[in-house]
């Protein structure tokens, strides 16, 4: 871990300004991912701006009938909030499928959106990795890639966004609220928040330098049945091989996003539209253009089968 300086900002705009003016600065919320990466010197911030005093931990209704979840709300607080449980069950289910109770007590909304990939080559500083060291190459291509992406990846990187929470937010059409160093706010649809890797896999989101996430807004409730099915090699405490977040209406229409397969929560309008025709059609639309490796080719049928499981459960209920 490199030595770093630390401050606790007083307002969101001040925090944004502090990061913007200090080269190598980063925000820190729960630190459940950042600190691990700092110990391995995969992240080497020179300065940390802590957002814990910014009162960004609230969960409150919006005027539009939705719900706003603060950037600093813990995963545990969000998942257990009665309004989330009642109206946005997919979100509660996704969050509790991730990590462990202890980690969810520390992990936050903003931090979870910014969780970095769990590609093993990203984690070993001796291995070439375009995400960790741009231009060094991608070791995962041609290497051990069982856990990695099959769609939306590039020749420079086949890593995945590893989180669970964001898959549910994608299905709910959430928006990411931010403030910039000038105090200007904006709202980024979650589908536009994460970037595909392309030639620049080290740039993972469309946030600008110093731009601070202040919260995530969920639109008014969708109704329907909510599902989050996470497939993994052990029963708990593992990243998804594939996960399906879905909201299904009584008429069989619905929407779904899939985790564990792409640089971002993977949702495709044509796939949503194909849901009434069944899992095969919907999964085919979702995975159009997929480029799996030999190691992770199984994810293609696994997506379809997991979606089929969710649809069968919806039908049975």
């Amino acid at each position: 871990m490199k030595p770093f300086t630390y401050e606790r900002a007083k307002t969101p705009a001040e925090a944004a300004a502090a990061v913007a003016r200090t080269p190598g600065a980063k925000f820190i919320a729960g630190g459940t991912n950042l600190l691990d990466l700092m110990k391995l010197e995969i992240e080497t911030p020179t300065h940390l701006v802590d957002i814990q005093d910014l009162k960004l931990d609230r969960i409150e209704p919006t005027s539009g009938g939705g719900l706003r979840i603060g950037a600093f709300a813990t995963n545990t607080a969000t998942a257990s909030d009665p309004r989330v449980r009642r109206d946005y069950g997919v979100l509660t289910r996704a969050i509790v499928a991730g990590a462990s109770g202890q980690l969810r007590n520390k992990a936050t909304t903003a931090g979870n959106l910014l969780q970095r990939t769990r590609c093993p080559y990203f984690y070993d500083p001796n291995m070439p990795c375009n995400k960790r060291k741009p231009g060094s190459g991608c070791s995962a291509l041609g290497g051990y890639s069982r856990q990695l992406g099959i769609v939306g990846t590039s020749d420079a990187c086949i890593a995945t966004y590893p989180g669970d929470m964001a898959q549910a937010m994608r299905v709910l059409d959430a928006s990411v609220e931010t403030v910039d160093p000038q105090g200007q706010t904006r709202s980024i649809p979650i589908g536009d928040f994460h970037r595909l890797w392309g030639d620049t896999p080290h740039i993972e989101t469309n946030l600008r330098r110093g731009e601070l996430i202040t919260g995530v807004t969920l639109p008014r409730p969708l109704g329907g049945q909510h599902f989050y099915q996470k497939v993994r090699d052990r029963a708990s405490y593992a990243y998804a091989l594939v996960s399906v977040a879905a909201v299904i209406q009584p008429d069989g229409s619905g929407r779904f996003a899939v985790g564990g397969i792409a640089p971002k929560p993977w949702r495709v309008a044509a796939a949503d539209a194909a849901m009434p025709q069944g899992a095969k059609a919907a999964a085919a639309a979702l995975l159009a253009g997929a480029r799996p490796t030999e190691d992770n080719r199984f994810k293609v049928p696994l997506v379809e089968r997991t979606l089929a499981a969710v649809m069968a459960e919806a039908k049975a209920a």
Partner: protein
Amino acid sequence: MKFDQPAGTNPIDQLKVVGKAVDRIDGPLKTTGTAPYAYERHDVAPDQAYGYVVGSAIAKGSITRMDTADAKRAPGVVTVLTTLDVAKPLPNGPQNTATLFGGAAIQHYHQAIAIVVAETFEQARSAAALIRTEYTRTPGKYDLAKEEPHAPLKGGSSGEGSSAPPIDRVGDFAGAFAAAPVKVDQTYTTPDETHAMMEPHASIAAWSGDRLTVWTSNQMIAWSKRDLAKALSIPPEKLRVDSPFIGGGFGGKLFIRADVVLAALGAKAARRPVKVALSRPMMANNTTHRPATIQRVRLGANRDGRLTAIAHSSTSGNLPDGKPETAVSQTKLFYAAPNRETYLKLAVLDLPEGNAMRAPGEAPGLMVLEMAMDELAEALRMDPVELRVINDTQVDPEKPNHPFSERHYVECLRTGAERFGWSQRNPKPAQVRDGKWLVGMGVAGGFRNNQLTKSAARIRLERDGRLTVETDMTDIGTGTYTILAQTAAEMMGVRVQDVNVRLGDSDFPVSAGSGGQWGANNSTAGLYAACLKLREAIAQRLGFASPEVAFADGKVTAGSRSATLKDAAQAGPITGEDGFDPTDMGKRWQQSTFAAHFVEVGVNIYTGETRVRRMLAVCDAGRILNPKSARSQVIGAMTMGVGGALMEELAVDKRFGLFINHDLATYEVPVHADIPHQDVIFLDHPDDKSSPMKAKGVGELGLCGVGAAIANAIYNATGVRVRDYPITLDKHLEKLPQVA
């Protein structure tokens, strides 16, 4: 004490304390976080500095240059020592091959190449990243499947006692197999595995002149002392090794590793005590691992199920001069058949050193043999329990005049079948559904030898009437403290709480140590011998000449005379010291332990995920000294078996030559949610050929066969046979039955 004939009746047979489910006497220390593990022994030496180990970034080649200038200048750095500062590789102990430190040559990824010593851990780690190393890479061999076809034959020993000559033949295998009406001939694979114990390798070293003390985490104190003295070229008598608490080892701590060597070298260079722990990401590649195997089993049987021909071969890889994984050992002994053939092949690989991991040989060997038996049962249309019963043997099948000391494998199978509800199993696969789950049951046999070895101890009656036990025996989480206290209490007629047990110090008498499930029986037998000496000494001190001296309720009684133990020690402490010497008892009889494992699994018909629903192990392992700690050993081993069957695999990057999933996020072991229900039954068959304790090992038996029972249950659930471990969902997903 020479043990050269079966044990007669002795004080242990009273079973007033031994054989009882006594709580662990070290439990309160562990549950309150006050047990002194190596890295936290802040009190043993003043002014400890922190060492951080740097691992090689390449798998094979040599170092051409190391620039440590920036690291040496970094804040808090006391000293930096590189492998180039040591002219040639430090000499290894007899059971190891990989270089622990020294010289420019790189044999494997994450080989230790430097230690940075600093005032704080963070400073040491930060400075370590500033060392710049230049390498010349040499092409290496990392792909076992590629090397397997031309790998040479090799005999070998597991380092934990299992061994095999290069090729072992009885009768005419080829002829009998060709003539057999029912056959199985399949190839199976098991992956590389890492021990993944909670406590990493950790040591503190302090020099006082030319004398060195190391506080470390190690299973085998005498081996450590021998090997560390050799590595450092110091006389063994100048070295003290202390390891009273160990946070798991599973064979990964049978030998010294880079942590203790570099703590010692770092302390010398820094001229102050140095502590070192290996970081988690270094543990998979810097230390040892269980090697992967490619195994072929051929079974030929008559239509009644009797085996006529058994062949088992296994290929593993290791560094040059390394040992094979002895995966065929159990096949020599487990089932009767007149025609047999077993052999090992060993390829040279440039991966880290393969070596012992819990039940080396038997663990991967039984995962395969017992799956093949399931396949044979199906080919015969025979119940897999009955197939095993009909092929039981009471003698070593290779040497018919060499009987087992005790063997109750059939009783394990019958008892387990009854208790588990085996008769409810549908022999036709893929027939049982519970919602989205395909449900199946599987059985497999477990086998692991009971190894006899010398073990010594000292016991002292203190002035206050309490007893102190001292032996270099270790407790690796197994319950050794407690069973030694029980043994002393039984022998001396006191309560467990009157016994103080001190372990893991090389100044104490040399014990069996912890490995190969030999610890419990041999170390308690050594203490038994010491207790006999103490009983004599006490009787003599009291002037009780009668041969019939009884020790009970804190008193010594001979005829009408009686005294308390405290009275006996009034004139000063009394010591008894002796050891257990098993002579050739382990050779005169084949001494082994047996188990039957029963497992029910559910396989998600959509996703292919396997979840274990319930497990039962029935164990035949002699007298059980403490049913509570023994049960804990077995359920822990069963849990490890779930890992081996369903998820554990070190992923080899065949280009860079390393295990790439080198942390606990990517190398998955079971979590609580994977283990819903476990049951253990111990059969009560004391073995008088094993020791005066009549006990045997149990810690590895619990793992042996579990993986196959799970694999067989999966097959029963799905009808898809996966012969490559671990059985992850991708291996059967697209062959699963259609969702109805």
